[in-house]
Structures are given as C-alpha cells and as structure tokens.
C-alpha cells in the first residue's frame, strides 16, 4: 500500500506553475498516478485541459518526455511510441526500462477517442491509459459528453422550458474497457489516494494494456467552490455514484464499500450543475437517478461476488 511519507518524497513529473484552475481534479489525479511509477516514463496527452494548461509554448510543465498529438488519438499515439520502444529493444538498440502512459479527458476518451483507445487495447500494447473524467468538455466551456450524468446542466444540455438538462445516463466506459479483456482495469478516485496510487502502480507494472478511469471533479464545470474538490470526490464514492473497483485478469473486485450509502441527493446538492434537477417539480428525475445508481451498484456487487 502506498505510504504518504514515501510518495511525498518523490519529485513531481508534472511540475508546479502550470495553468490548470485552482481545485482542478485532473492535476491531482495525474500527480498521484505518476508518483506510482519507479521508472522513466513517456507521457502522452489528448488535447484538453491538461494539455493546453501544461504546455503553452515556450513553456512546459512536464519533467518527463511528453507528446501531444491531437484530440482523439492519445492511445494511438502512445501505441506508436511504445511500438518504437519494443522495436528498438528487440534490435538491441535500447535496453533501459521505460513506461508509457496516456491521459485523456472524458471527451477524448468516452467520445472522440474511443476508437483509438479500443484499437490500442486490442493490439495489446504495454501501456497505461488514464481517463481523467470531469464529466463534460470542460476545456471548450462545459459541453455535454457521453460521460455527463443524467440531469446535469451543461452549455449543450441546458435546462430549458421543456428539457431539464442532460436526458441520458452516462456511458459505462470502465465496463466497455473491461469487455476488451485487457489485464488490468480500474475505477478510482483522488479522495482514496492510496487506492489510486496502488492501482496506478499495478497498471504500470502489469504487462500489456491497463486502464484507469478516475473521476476528476471540476469546480468550474460542476459549479462548486474550488476548495471542495476532494469533498466532491469523497461524496461521489460515498453515494455509490462513482464506485471504486478493479478488474484484474477478468476478476472483478470491489475496493470500497461505504458503511452506509448516502443518498445521491447529497452528491447532487453540493453542485450547481444539478440545481435544476433538484427543483420540487423534478422529484421524479431525482428518483430515477437514485434508482440508476442503486441498480448499477447492485450489478457491480454481483460482478464482484459481494452480497
């Protein structure tokens, strides 16, 4: 298990001074994950908040090798980097151990980059893919993605006279990735930092593709004060809205079970993006959202062999 004392001694690969917002969940996730790597690492990033805020020419926040190619192709790009590494290693032109990791937001992963990710997973490259899921296209100004939860306000799922925010449930990306039967898949949160770092370590040191889906609270897009990021992360887990689990070589394992599950309204009430959904006339919507959370949790317990 990751120990805070040891983790804190490591030099951050993502250096301070980047231009991500105060309270950004993505940078916390990135720092926790990269702290789990004991070897040199090559980082790839999809276009998105993380990339634009850390590489504004002529500056870079990356102390490691870093490549940004485009929006939808972080997985294909890192697969090319890894393929070159494997080729040169086989030819005896390089011998040191190097790890490969790609970061994408939910837009770059659930939506536009899903094909690229699926291809790279199927081909079996030895790399880690991390989705920092902030549940909308935050970089372009809070547009809905297939990771945006139901009932949420975004600029392209506004709450109007007829439609109360996003009408669809989010895509189960972690399940989609698990269906690729890659060696390691996990869902994690920055609140349970030691769970996340352990999972990242497993992901780095599992041969073949590994995938982490990490909820990255976004103060701007979710409408909460920037000092509450970890609180949001905590609530997402305690309400079973974002359960923590892993699928290791096909075996599903639950990593955290709240003693008493909090109602989803606790999670919703803390964020301005749910304001409209919480109006008295939308009670039916809240009930449906709660039912969806409960159903998903039940299904997960079954998959994990829990009661």
């Amino acid at each position: 298990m990751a120990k805070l004392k040891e983790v804190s001694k490591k030099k951050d690969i993502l250096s301070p001074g980047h231009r991500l917002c105060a309270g950004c969940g993505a940078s916390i996730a990135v720092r926790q994950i990269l702290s789990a790597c004991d070897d040199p690492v090559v980082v790839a990033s999809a276009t998105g908040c993380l990339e634009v805020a850390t590489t504004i020419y002529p500056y870079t926040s990356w102390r490691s090798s870093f490549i940004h190619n485009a929006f939808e192709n972080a997985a294909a790009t890192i697969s090319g980097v890894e393929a070159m590494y494997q080729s040169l290693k086989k030819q005896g032109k390089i011998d040191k151990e190097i790890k490969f990791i790609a970061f994408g937001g939910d837009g770059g992963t659930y939506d536009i980059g899903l094909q690229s990710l699926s291809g790279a997973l199927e081909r079996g490259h030895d790399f880690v893919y991390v989705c920092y899921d902030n549940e909308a296209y935050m970089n372009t100004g809070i547009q809905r993605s297939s990771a945006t939860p139901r009932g949420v306000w975004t600029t392209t799922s506004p709450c109007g006279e007829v439609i109360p925010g996003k009408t669809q449930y989010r895509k189960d990306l972690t399940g989609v990735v698990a269906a690729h039967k890659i060696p390691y898949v996990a869902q994690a949160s920055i609140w349970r930092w030691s769970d996340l770092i352990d999972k990242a370590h497993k992901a780095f040191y599992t041969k073949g593709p590994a995938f982490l889906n990490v909820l990255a609270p976004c103060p701007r897009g979710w409408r909460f004060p920037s000092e509450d990021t970890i609180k949001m992360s905590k609530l997402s887990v305690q309400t079973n809205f974002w359960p923590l689990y892993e699928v290791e070589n096909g075996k599903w394992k639950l990593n955290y079970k709240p003693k008493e599950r909090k109602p989803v309204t606790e999670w919703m009430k803390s964020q301005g993006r749910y304001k409209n959904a919480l109006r008295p006339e939308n009670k039916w919507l809240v009930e449906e959202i709660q039912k969806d959370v409960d159903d998903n949790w039940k299904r997960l317990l079954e998959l994990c062999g829990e009661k």
Partner: protein
Amino acid sequence: MTKKNLVAITGNDAAAYAIKQINPDVMAAYPITPQTDLVQTFSEYVADGLVNTEFVTVESEHSAMSACVGAAAAGGRVMTATSANGLALMFEIVYIAASNKLPIVMPVVNRALSGPINIHCDHSDSMAARDAGWIQIYSESAQEAYDNIIQAIKIAENMKVRLPVMVMYDGFITSHGIEVVDFLDDKVVNEFIGDYKPNHPLLDTEKPLTYGPLDLYDFYFEHKRQQAEDIKNSKPVILDVAREFKNISGREYKLFESYKLEDAETAIVALSSTAGTAKAVVDELRDEGKKVGLLKPRVFRPFPYNELAEALSHLKAVAILDRSDSFGAFGGPVFTEIRSAMVEYGKMPENINIIYGLGGRDINQQDLKNIYGQLGEIVETGKVGDRIQYYGVRE
C-alpha cells in the same frame, strides 16, 4: 553500379519490397484499395521474420498516422501507406506530422476521393494534401515507385530537411499492373539509406522534451514560417539524393523529366502513368515529323516553379493535364501552379488545362494524340478556345 536484378512484379509488390529493404523500425498501416496488396505483402515479410519492423496493425488510417507520429517522435524510422479516403481520414495528423518535422515516408497509391465512392485512379487524394507540408513525389511506373520510396527515406531523414515524404503512384494502373522492375541488392539499399539518426527522441528520457505544445499567436506564425523555409530547402537535397541514387542504380532522377522537349513546339505536362502513355504518343508523332514533347513533373512539393517554367518557355503551346479538379478554381492544381510559374518567369506559351481521367476514366494514346492535335491547331490559328477543358466526359 550493380548488376541487373530484373523481376516481373506489380507496383504494390515493388513498393512492399522497397519497404522490406528499408526495414523500418515501425510500420503502422491500415489496408485500403488499391494500396491493400502492399500491406498484405509486407505482412508476409513480418510473418516470415524477414524484417525487424514492429508492424502496428491499427484500426484506422487516423490511428495509422497517429501511431506514426508517436513512433517517429520516439526516435526511429517509420513508414505507412494509404490511398484516397484513408489519406482523407488521416488528414488532421498528416499536417501534425509535418509540423513536428517527423521524417515519415508514406506511399500514396492514388485513388479518387469519395464521393461518390470509387476505387480507381485519379489524383484528388494527394492533391488535397498538397498544402500539408509534406514533400510530394510522383512516380510514373513500378520502377519509379520503388526508386522514389528508397530515395524518400534519405530525403526525409536528411538533417537539413527532416520532413515527411509522400510517394505517389497510380492506383491499379501502376499498383496492380505487372512491370519489369530492377531491384537493388539489400546491401546497396542499406548503405544508401544508412542508419537512422534520431533527433530529439522521446525515448531519450534523460533529455525530456515536450512535443506538440499549444502554440498561440505569439509563436505559431514564426513556426509556420520556418516550415515554409524547411520544405523550400529540401530541393537541393532531393537533387543530391537523386545524384547519389544514379551512382548505385544507373537511373536518373531530377525534379521533373523532360521527354523530347528541348526542340518541341508543343508539349503535354502530365503526372505519373499518363506520362508513360504520352511518351509512346510523342514517339509516334515524332515519326510523323511533328515537334512534340512531354514534361512529367516528379517533385510537386516543393514545387520547382522556376525550373518548370524555364523548361516550358520555348514552346508555342502547352496542354497541362490534371487528373483532379479544384472545384470552383481557375483550373486544376497542376495547371494553376504551372501557369502562375510561367507568368512569374515572364515567358508564357499559349496554354490549356485538360482535366481528365477522374475516377479511373481511361486515357489512351488516341486521346493524347487528340490533345497534341488541339495544340497544333492553337499554334496554327492562334485561337485557344476553352482554356479549361474536361476531356473524355459525357456532357
């Protein structure tokens, strides 16, 4: 110079053989008609352990070029190949490859770009990519495709260039037609291209570097200006490489080929396989005493505007053939560029633009004879008629 090693082979198999001899560290490719046989044949080389290449069998052309960018930035020799819609799908990353100065080499087997969907030859695919920042080299035959692919590696990787190169040859006509090709020995090819020299590789983790940063109005323009300079500077390198290639092969390459052009009064300008047909027509008409010639552009990017205009300047009339259209423009892309070059040069023979062969519509010797005939009439009467013509289409 080496002994002849003649093989009857298709253009695609000749290209695959060139790639086998080049033995790239990474090849990331997706099959598409008419390029498919190239990828299939190369897959067999991989399966038989005849290459060191890590062959990345991607799920799309977009990922093919994306993986190529990652692999080339990682630091090694990288290739791919495509056609038409495949090139269109990778378009976004084609630009990124060039702006990152990654020396990727890509055969493009020319095919009509949809829609409507069509699998046969025209040049609408590579012409659409002419502003992407890649060096573009067109090939008349399987032999030229083979030779150009090998030269492309040495051009792309030259430290004064470090740019990606597209090598074009005509879909089906060249890709599937069987020709006699003279292959070089593996050893000769290896010595010619030399070892790959990495330049700021990602895999040098001791010297971390950021590829692909956000580049806004304070620096973007300067970077694009440098890119313009880089591709311009590739011209002498392309000629140097051609000279070196002549030493190992006996085959001569320049920026373009002039065929019986020096004393010609009229000429056709045509890319790729059509130029082969035109040579036969020139020979026939010469036998009849007609002073006709041919100019076959080889390097379209960088565009050798001064040299081309000079080579055409003594003519009385020239027909510039385009196997693609630039809808709404004043003629096809080859025409607009050459006409502009002739204006700049200050001596412009009378000229017409023939847009032909779209979607694989055949062009035969009689067609080209008709075009030479039309040029003869222009010279005789001084009347041009329609300057932009669609040839061989029902209207």
